[in-house]
């Protein structure tokens, strides 16, 4: 019988006056046993992170506080213990890792000293012992060259390495509970898979109870023993992982699960032979520091694009898939002339646009447009929505009334209320903003649309809506689309063909179906195998499709 570590009963967290709701979480009950992984799932604003913070006694007091309920850890109520006791528990009995290892680590202290602190403040050990133990820990989390990492500063490590160091730190004193707050969200898929495996492995070694917070059902499927789904601060469903994933009861859970894109590629459609865009042997290098007086040649160089060649056929969606640093965004920016290429050719309708002067390029702007990743950064907060959409046509010389008319049409096409026209971007949610961004890009009636990770900043339920919208529009307006993403699941849903990029090179290109079925390049194989929840989702999606077909029939 596994020992119960944590028992949360009837927990309420109150928000300060003026917040959008009175309680961040209400009536939350939760249990965690030794060696068990409990996943708390929810979209942004569901209160899952605050729940985790409350367990550590880390709520941003005094504005946010526990107003009711208890958090029993080994028969102690954490909401009532003294500050000193709480401090003793933190780091030694209960520890935590975070989403952004870069900001969660102190940038000006070496990894070694940040690990060392934990020992100094919790146990009595000699300096040499502490040192030795820290190196062992770093070795345990599979960091190469632990001695060197000890001396390194956070910025000198990669994202995955930083998260490993964080885990080492969290597990230093073999805590009974590890709280992981979206620890893999900021990481690439292959790294994510490694980290998840690491957490699993460590859990086995230390028999730790893990409270894992995530928004990704794929991750849940891979790691959870039990699942708890939260919406607007309320637990809507909980239970063993299989039960919740395969037989969701609550409509919200159902909606969430069905929104998770399936890994099985969409039906291939016949692809036109007409090339609308050709990219040939494009290279791009970024320079580093410069000479004495800031003049002269750059001294350090990074090759962002190496000899990239691909074509876009009329009416297709071409996925460009890769992890961070693969050059996929650079490629998009080179195609749309936000960056200049060093060499190679990008050709539309027989014109090599990458060599055009800025002025000459202006005429080509309405052929090709872009949808950006971050719906918060891609809209100017100081300009009204209507103007944001209309400013493209106006810039291209269309008269104002015409442009405004078109903007109003587009607002309804992307599914927004007509009143949106006179509002500012900050009044809209992330998904709505992305619709505005799409409307802006369509205002010039482009033939080619480049979508740069258009859904990666959105919650799952919103993601699918936006993907549907893009698909509809592509049909309606007869667009050809380049779709840039890091998420193979998304690529599977929207792309007719896809190109896989690594270190600035296209390592594999072909029909989506073919690549998923028979990946050629080892990197593609890695990527595919790293997709979280792939086993569950492929089976589940079949089931869901079945039920769908059933209900239809």
């Amino acid at each position, binding site marked *: 019988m596994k020992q119960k570590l944590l028992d949360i009963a009837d927990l309420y967290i109150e928000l300060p006056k003026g917040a959008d709701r009175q309680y961040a979480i209400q009536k939350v009950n939760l249990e965690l046993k030794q060696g068990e992984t409990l996943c708390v799932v929810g979209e942004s604003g569901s209160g899952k992170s605050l729940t985790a913070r409350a367990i550590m006694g880390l709520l941003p007091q005094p504005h946010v506080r526990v107003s009711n309920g208890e958090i029993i850890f080994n028969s102690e109520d954490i909401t009532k213990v003294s500050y000193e006791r709480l401090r003793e528990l933190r780091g030694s009995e209960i520890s935590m890792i975070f989403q952004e290892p870069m900001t969660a680590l102190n940038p000006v202290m070496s990894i070694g000293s940040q690990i060392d602190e934990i020992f100094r403040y919790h146990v009595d050990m000699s300096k040499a012992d502490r040192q030795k133990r820290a190196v062992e820990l770093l070795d345990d989390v599979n960091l190469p060259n632990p001695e060197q990492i000890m001396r390194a500063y956070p910025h000198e490590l990669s994202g995955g390495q930083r998260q490993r160091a964080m885990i080492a730190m969290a597990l230093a004193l073999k805590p009974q509970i590890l709280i992981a707050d979206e620890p893999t969200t900021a990481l690439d898929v292959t790294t994510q898979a490694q980290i998840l495996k690491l957490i699993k492995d460590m859990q086995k070694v230390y028999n730790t109870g893990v409270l894992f917070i995530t928004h990704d059902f794929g991750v849940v499927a891979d790691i959870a023993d039990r699942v708890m789904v939260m919406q607007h601060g309320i637990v809507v469903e909980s239970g063993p992982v299989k039960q919740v994933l395969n037989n969701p009861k609550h409509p919200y859970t159902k909606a969430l699960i069905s929104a998770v894109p399936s890994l099985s590629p969409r039906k291939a459609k016949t692809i036109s032979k007409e090339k609308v865009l050709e990219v040939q042997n494009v290279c791009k290098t970024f320079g580093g520091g410069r000479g004495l007086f800031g003049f002269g040649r750059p001294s350090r160089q990074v090759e962002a694009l190496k000899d990239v060649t691909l074509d876009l056929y009329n009416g297709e969606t071409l996925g460009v898939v890769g992890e961070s640093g693969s050059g996929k965004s650079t490629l998009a920016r080179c195609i749309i002339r936000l960056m200049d290429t060093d060499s190679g050719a990008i050709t539309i309708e027989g014109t090599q646009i990458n060599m055009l002067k800025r002025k000459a390029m202006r005429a080509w702007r309405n052929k090709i447009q872009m949808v950006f990743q971050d719906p918060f*950064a891609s809209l100017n907060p100081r300009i009204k929505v209507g103007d944001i959409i209309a400013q493209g046509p106006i*810039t291209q010389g269309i008269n104002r009334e015409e442009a405004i008319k078109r903007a109003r049409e587009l607002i309804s096409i992307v599914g927004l209320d007509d009143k949106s026209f006179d509002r500012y971007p900050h009044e809209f949610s992330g998904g709505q903003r992305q619709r505005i961004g799409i409307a802006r890009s369509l205002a010039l009636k482009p033939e080619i649309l480049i979508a740069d990770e258009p859904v990666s900043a959105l919650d799952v339920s919103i993601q699918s809506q936006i993907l549907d919208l893009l698909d509809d529009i592509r049909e309606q307006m007869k667009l050809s689309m380049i779709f840039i993403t890091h998420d193979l699941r998304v690529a599977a849903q929207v792309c007719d063909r896809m190109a896989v990029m690594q270190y600035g090179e296209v390592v594999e290109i072909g029909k989506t179906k073919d690549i998923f079925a028979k990946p050629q390049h080892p990197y593609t194989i890695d990527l595919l195998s790293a997709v979280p929840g792939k086993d569950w989702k492929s089976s589940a999606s079949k089931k869901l499709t079945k039920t769908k077909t059933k209900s239809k029939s």
Partner: protein
Amino acid sequence: MRDFWNRYKRNRSAVFGLVVIFLVILMAATADLLYAFDPFRLAGKPLSSPGTNGFLLGSDSLGRDVAAGIVHGAKTSLLIGLVATLVAVFIGILFGALAGYYGGQIDNILMRVTEVFQTIPSFIFAILLVAILKPSIYSVVIAISVVSWPGVARLVRGEFLSLKNREFVQACHTLGMSDLRIMLREILPNCLSPIIVIGSLMIATAILIESGLSFLGLGDPNIMSWGFQIGAGRTMLRSAWWVCTFPGVAILITVLAINLVGEGLNDALNPRLRERN
């Protein structure tokens, strides 16, 4: 806007500062009603202490009314602060925007120029400019602007550097928008908050510099300002404290209030920094 005001008014001292500034502006605006005569006029018995001979705040060595000087001087001091700041902000935006937006050699050259002006010991340079241009309200304004713009330029450059890579700016490029339009309409409005904050503090500094220049005898001899009053009264600080104490207090209060407002603006415009969590 309402949001902004709600956030602003949460800072009580900032509201207090705003009230004080409002009063000072009111005083400056109604100077000709409150003391409807030339503040240089010899109004009565010299060196009357405050409250005697009909002088609320006393009179100076020539029998000029200190209170009248403060009321009329408010106009000058505020105007110098405001105009000098506007000029400095204009130059700073020009340099910072071009350098930050275009980067590369343009940035390099403009920033070298900025560095030159940052390296010159600023107050001495201001003195030099006033001496060469001959003491007048214009030369004081020019001198203050010339020594204050590099800070704005650096700030604006930093903002432009980070904003020009924002996606909404890139979106404008993809729409084929001209550089000038992107700079003025897209980027500039988004760095107004820090400019407003630094600008409000620069007004305060400008008033202090003006008083420092006047202390060294480099003010405009024809225009009543607080700096002038202090310069004229400083040798008699020991015998007639009121002559330069009251204008000094006027400077203190005004600069203080502007600072409070600046901090309030900062809090309201950058809500992230407001409080410890």
